[in-house]
């Protein structure tokens, strides 16, 4: 999933703990073929991303989120408060009220251990809501 280019996301007030967000999974290998649940690969940051891109469930219909990308393999939900428990922050994108960024996940090239750990935690917390 593509996040915002570096420097463009909003660093403003974090979202309320009760917020639910959608994370789009674009590749087959973002899902564990044994369980059909998200695996940590779906939560690794790309070099050109400041954070992990998500959509706010209250502001964006599920099918609108799916339609925002060319090829979506699955969609999972995450609870913002549980991400705060991991030490992450989730901030709204001031350029797109439907969109937010999960901040605090390091690039694998900078800190592979933390990136994989947090990826595993996020995958474990996620709940599947749609699959192609």
């Amino acid at each position: 999933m593509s996040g915002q280019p570096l420097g463009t996301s909003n660093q403003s007030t974090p979202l309320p703990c009760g917020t639910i967000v959608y994370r789009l999974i674009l590749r087959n290998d973002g899902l564990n073929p044994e369980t059909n649940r998200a695996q940590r690969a779906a939560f690794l940051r790309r070099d050109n991303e400041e954070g992990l891109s998500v959509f706010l469930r209250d502001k964006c219909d599920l099918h609108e989120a799916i339609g925002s990308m060319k090829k979506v393999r699955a969609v999972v939900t995450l609870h913002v408060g549980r991400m705060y428990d991991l030490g992450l922050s989730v901030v709204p994108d001031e350029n797109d009220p439907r969109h937010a960024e999960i901040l605090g996940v390091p690039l694998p090239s900078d800190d592979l251990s933390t990136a994989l750990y947090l990826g595993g935690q996020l995958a474990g917390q996620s709940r599947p809501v749609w699959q192609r």
Partner: protein
Amino acid sequence: MNAAATPYYEIPNCPTYGHVVVPMEPLLTGVQKKAWVLPGDYVEYWQPRDVASALDVDYDTTISRVIAMAQEEEDGPTLHALTTALVLLANLRDQIDFPFPRATASTTPDGGIHVYWERPGRTLVLAVPPRQDAAGYIYHEDATGHAALRDTSPQTLVRWLTWFAYA
């Protein structure tokens, strides 16, 4: 035809780099016309007895998953990552004295490969780099913590896979 005369097999339909030829010798066991095919003139190498005695479904599944990533149309692993992962897994299988644990796999954003062994309370990841000048890692995680080791030597891989298998 004998083994020495047929040291390669071919993985077809890898969009990024066409067909891939990989050393065959360490990858013989468990391969049975599933995710890849052999060149036609190597057919007689595959006598039923050769495969049946060494069939390993979990290893075969793992290898198939790694190869499937190279057959995706977009953002597949680099050729270096693919061949390195296949050889590391084949060598690993040859060196352990317990059943090969089934793993899943993914392509990383930079074209590397992650191979995941996961069970409740214990995770092991083999991180294969996209390029020869980048480092590979072994990541391990359990209730006591997590760490990534910059070492994918055969001895280290065997040690950590044993740690995983005997959780």
